């Protein structure tokens, strides 16, 4: 009798156990997959730097010796230093006032100025770099041709293939990061703080310099550090602008080492290490600043928004400033590509005779170059697959991070953030070493690119998903479990529907980023496995202006369609309970 009752009591917990197991199984799998994705290439990059060739297992320090005694290293260090420091400085110098104009002044057409934040999202650095190469090349650049046409001057107005050119283009495309961080901080600032300064006797300008800017400082620094990291890892701009002028930085030098005959794999790996360390240091610094930032966010009751600062006549100067930036960063480049896609030959004046649709037709029928359609197909396959895999991983990772605690949470937060600090080139070198020989010989397949993409953009996905997951109370799942749903059923039927907007936003963000990925792809692609960004680079190298232009516009069009879709879906599908 007693034993029967006892057994009856035991059975339910026995049934509940497997459900628990499936959850911890998935959790362990998530942690493992993420770790392999992130740490495995880093491990191989390190191993590779101590190996003479990928095929021979042997310890040697010769690669480091070669790299650190090489003639190129001092130059690469100097160039990289000048470029990144100057870019970070100017991007901050341009971005902060732009943010202030939008957040705090009565400058007209603010919606337009806010587009600044969208520029890097829509225009890949590759496009900016190529467009500026067409605009500013010393002999045939449109700006210089127009200048000598106007003034008769022999000297080019602006030679983009120079350190100055490199810094200008870098700054144009990285300023938005500072702008975005700063304007968000200024918009979310407790208005009471500025009102308090005003009532105490501080005029608008003094309030700006003693209250607004110091309070936004953590955000400004954080944006500046992001710019710093980006300027270290972007490949397209130094490749398209620096290399033709003989200016090599870390990423382009690593690429050169791979291009050599024979390719110097171990030197590339050895050169990757200092690059990785600098980026890691920068990320660590940024995290420290963001951590400190929390003590700055003050709780506020309902308060009056501070009056916008009336700039008077100066508002037109502010508008002109913002307008000039938009023209340089977006309008001119797109004009170049539009011109390029319909002109018979580069440099011809725009008359009806000189316009043609031949290139457009040949581009879209695939007659022009088999590379074009192949690369579009490859990119779509990679980005659709990569974004989907990455978003699932990101969802699991954010879930376990938001619901977990202690070490496993800390580890997940860490591992899902680290890729931000790993330049594409470094991941590529690591993956090369890891997957170039049997049994995992993935080099030469799309798989290696898929792994690279998933690894690189996991942080974006985690960020997008976790910002919506923390708004969903764990009680909702608990309620599902009380109603009798197991863990998997609870996750799929309760969480996933609520998370859909966040998941979709993360998916689009990653898809768009993968479509344009170049830093890693350029080192990992093989013939037949080109992506759109790689094809763009190759076509540009072949100097086919029209196809480059068409390719660039196609890439942007695909991104825009995706972003548009996302807006529609997020607007339509915002379920109750998530705001």
């Amino acid at each position, binding site marked *: 009798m007693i034993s029967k009752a006892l057994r009856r009591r035991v059975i339910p917990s026995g049934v509940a156990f497997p459900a628990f197991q499936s959850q911890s199984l998935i959790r362990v799998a998530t942690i493992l997959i993420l770790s392999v994705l992130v740490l495995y290439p880093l491990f191989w990059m390190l191993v590779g730097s101590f190996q003479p060739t990928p095929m021979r297992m042997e310890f040697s320090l010769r690669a480091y010796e070669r790299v650190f005694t090489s003639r190129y290293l001092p130059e690469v260090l100097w160039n990289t230093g000048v470029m990144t420091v100057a870019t970070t400085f100017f991007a901050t110098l341009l971005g902060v006032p732009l943010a202030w104009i939008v957040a705090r002044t009565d400058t007209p057409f603010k919606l337009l100025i806010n587009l600044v934040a969208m520029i890097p999202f829509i225009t890949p650095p590759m496009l900016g770099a190529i467009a500026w190469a067409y605009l500013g090349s010393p002999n045939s650049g449109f700006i210089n041709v127009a200048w000598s046409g106007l003034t008769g001057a022999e000297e080019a107005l602006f030679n983009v293939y120079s350190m100055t050119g490199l810094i200008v283009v870098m700054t144009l495309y990285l300023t938005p990061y500072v702008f975005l961080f700063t304007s968000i901080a200024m918009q979310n600032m*407790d208005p*009471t*703080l500025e*009102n*308090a*300064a*005003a*009532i*105490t*006797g*501080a*005029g*608008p300008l*003094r*309030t700006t310099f*003693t*209250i607004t800017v*110091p*309070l936004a*400082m953590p955000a400004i620094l954080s944006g500046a550090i992001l710019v710093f990291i980006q300027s270290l890892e972007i490949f397209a701009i130094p490749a398209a602008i620096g290399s033709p002028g003989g200016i090599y930085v870390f990423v382009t030098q690593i690429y050169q080492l791979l291009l050599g005959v024979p390719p110097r794999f171990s030197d590339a790996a050895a050169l990757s290490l200092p690059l990785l360390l600098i980026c890691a240091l920068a990320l660590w610094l940024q995290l420290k600043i963001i951590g400190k930032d929390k*003590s*700055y966010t*003050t*709780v*506020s*009751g309902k*308060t*009056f928004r*501070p*009056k916008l600062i009336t700039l008077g006549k100066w508002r037109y100067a502010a508008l002109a400033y913002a307008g000039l930036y938009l023209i340089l960063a977006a309008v001119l480049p797109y004009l170049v590509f539009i011109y390029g896609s319909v002109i018979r030959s580069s440099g011809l004046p725009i008359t009806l005779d000189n316009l043609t649709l031949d290139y457009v037709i040949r581009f879209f029928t695939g007659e022009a170059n088999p590379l074009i359609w192949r690369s579009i197909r490859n990119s779509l396959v990679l980005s659709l697959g990569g974004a989907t895999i990455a978003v699932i991983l990101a969802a699991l990772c954010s879930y376990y991070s938001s619901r977990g605690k202690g070490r496993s949470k800390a580890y997940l937060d860490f591992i899902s953030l680290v890729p931000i600090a790993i330049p594409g080139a470094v991941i590529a070198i690591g993956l090369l070493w890891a997957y170039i020989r049997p049994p995992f010989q993935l080099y030469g397949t799309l798989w290696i690119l898929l792994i690279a993409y998933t690894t690189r953009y996991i942080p974006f996905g985690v960020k997008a998903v976790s910002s919506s997951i923390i708004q969903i109370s764990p009680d909702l799942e608990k309620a599902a479990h009380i109603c009798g749903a197991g863990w998997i059923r609870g996750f799929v039927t309760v969480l996933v529907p609520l998370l859909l907007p966040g998941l979709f936003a993360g998916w689009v963000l990653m898809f768009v980023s993968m479509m344009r990925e170049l830093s890693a792809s350029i080192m990992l692609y093989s013939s037949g496995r080109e992506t759109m960004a790689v094809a763009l680079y190759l076509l540009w190298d072949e100097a086919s202006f029209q196809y480059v232009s068409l390719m660039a516009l196609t890439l942007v069009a695909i991104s825009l369609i995706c972003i548009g879709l996302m807006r529609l879906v997020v607007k339509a599908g915002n379920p109750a309970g998530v705001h």
Partner: protein
Amino acid sequence: MKNVEINGLTKFYGDVKAVDDIYLRVNQGEMITLLGPSGCGKSTTLNMIAGFETLDAGEIYVGDNVISSHTLSVMLPPHKRNLGMVFQSYGLWPHMTVAQNIGYGLKLRGIRGAKAKERIADALRLVRLEPYANRYPSQLSGGQQQRVSFARAVVYNPDVLLLDEPLSNLDATLREEMRFELKELQEKTGLTTIFVTHDQMEAMVMSDRIVVMQAGKIVQIGEPRDIYESPANRFVASFIGVTNFAEGEVLSRSDSGMRVALGGAVLACAARPDIAVGEKALVSIRPQDWSADTVQPEAGTPNLIESRVEKVVYLGGSYEIWTVTAGARFRIHRYGELSVSPGDTLYHWVAPERVRIIPN
């Protein structure tokens, strides 16, 4: 220290008249409170005085100077008004220490060095925070932040001090303490002060005069006692403290008083010239003005009502007894022991001067 004069102040938000033709004079050194329910326009009024909001009509003077005027198109920006303000969320600058927060206004007025140090120390002493000069606001408790905020607002001797619900972010016990402390600080500094709150107890304790607002309009101005004892209308009576309302009809009127019928009972009260015999009148009696007993008091007790006990609520040290008679319900506040339970008969009476007729 200056006086403030507000004439015909009006503010629209779209179609909403947030502030509707307000006239108000605040005397030198006086602490005046704008009191009213949420959304009645208190903050809007204060923000117009501070210069954060434009006026749609009217004018504001501080001393002899006009600081805002619709007709004269004057709108002095906040930083030129020489006012002090304590905000609901304190608005302490998180990147400055306590001393830097307090010293900011001094620096702007050209007071620097040793002189500034002395003034900052004085202000810190005033709010009893001397040891905290070098702390950051995030290292202070709510009440301490509140006091820093006060010190920051008064250190440069502003013409007028504005307080916008400064106590509403504090917990109940601390809020009660700070009421007295703020009042004391205000008296010490002697500043002309305009205080905004929706808490009637705060208003009672702290103000020299209370301005009761409703839907953008001023409905009554007076000393706390006046407002409590003779509310101008039903809204004020119900907003300030608990009261018993009953519709009655005036039976007779003479110089010595009136008699009003309330259901079955007849109450005597002071005469009002504005109500005629036969008219309806709203009667208000505060719960604590009742006397009550379970046995019938001697004959001739004025305004005696016999009613049935509905429920008894223990309030800690006192009781509230809810009763009902034909035609009226009453709440009776009683200190000390009285053993009644629902269903019992209760005799309660009230002095005629405690029966108030409220104009409708």
